[in-house]
């Protein structure tokens, strides 16, 4: 029960209080480019949830069984147990992400064409989305356990999904407003994101 409450509190924190987009600014490029359209936003949102939920736990294994100081001690060669490869973390994480995204894409193309149609075009874009690498790096910095990193990966994806769909809905309404020329597009989106982020600030201080 305690564990459940702990995970729930971690999830709330990742979705609302420390939203990966609005508090840490990760994944802004795709957020700005894709939030023009509600349906595309839902697509990329789901893809981020999916990929983050898989890559963060997988990178946890990479970290704990290959990279950390002494992590290689499961191999029965004594000199390996003192090796510290943690400086290779960024390059290993990004390689894992690139490979997994490719693999997941092939996998769902074969087994679920319907899912592929809704996620397909967004998956390659995701490799260079900072929110994916960012979630893995946060997992590394904060020293999460396996369970925590799975919950964190999934719920930071949910946070991204909520924020991008919300923004797409606002921009849909914005089509009918009269905006000064220089502010059209990127400028007004930035300011609106500021307001949205201000709204999310009101979640801070919530403790479960």
């Amino acid at each position, binding site marked *: 029960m305690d564990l459940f409450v702990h995970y729930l509190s971690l999830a709330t924190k990742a979705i609302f209080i420390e939203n990966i987009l*609005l*508090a*840490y*600014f*990760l*994944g*802004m*490029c795709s957020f*700005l*480019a894709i939030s023009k359209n509600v349906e595309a936003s839902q697509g990329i949102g789901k893809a981020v949830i999916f990929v983050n939920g898989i890559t963060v736990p997988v990178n946890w294994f990479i970290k704990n069984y290959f990279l950390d100081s002494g992590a290689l001690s499961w191999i029965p060669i004594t000199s390996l147990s003192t090796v510290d490869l943690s*400086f*290779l973390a*960024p*390059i290993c994480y*990004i*390689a894992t992400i*690139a490979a997994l995204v490719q693999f997941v894409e092939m996998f769902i193309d074969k087994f679920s064409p319907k899912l592929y149609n809704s996620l397909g075009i967004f998956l390659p874009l995701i*490799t*260079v*989305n*900072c929110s*994916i*690498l*960012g979630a893995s*790096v*946060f997992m590394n*910095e904060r020293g999460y356990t396996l369970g925590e990193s799975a919950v964190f990966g999934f719920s930071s994806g949910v946070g991204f999904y909520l924020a991008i769909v919300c923004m797409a809905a606002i921009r849909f309404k914005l089509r009918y407003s009269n905006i*000064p*020329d*220089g*502010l*059209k*597009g*990127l*400028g*007004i*989106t*930035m*300011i609106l*994101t*500021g*307001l949205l*982020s*201000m709204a999310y*600030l009101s979640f801070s201080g919530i403790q479960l």
Partner: protein
Amino acid sequence: MKSKQTFIDPLIDNNPITRQVLGICSALAVTVKVEQALVMTLALTFVVAMSNTIISLLRKYIPSSIRIIVQLTVISTLVILIDKILQAYMYEISKTLTVFVTLIITNCIVMGRADAYAMQNNVKDSFLDGLGNGLGYGMILIAVAFFRELFGFGTILNFQILPEFLKNGLMTMPPGAFIILGLIIWVQRSLTNYVEE
């Protein structure tokens, strides 16, 4: 003449942040203080100029089907290098930059310039293009940081400028970054007469 154009163009007219909409994440995150912004600019300019040079040297040998992974490998190696250098010589600042130095790997400016420019152009132009884009990015970064530090802490480079009671906490928090950057984009686009459809 062309080389000069390659260097100048990304500084103002074709600025990576306000026009190409690349690399927004770190432009927002590491702009709480001018000091941070300066170090980040240095790190990114180094990475983008070097990665452009290396990719351009290798451009005839990289098969196009695996070019993304080759580019990512080159970029991550450079990022690990600069991350370790910052940790060794500027430990205090590197702590405030947290994960954002590592995240230069997925900064769209670096990937974008490597893929769109360095794959087709010679070494000298690629280097200048990288340098220009890094500095163009830095200009916006420092401008955002200037206003955030001035209004948020009342200081510039840690010197007190505004009196204590004028401090505005909102500027040091995420919404301040979004709104300041929005206004800077407005100014830049009005000056260059650019209208997005």
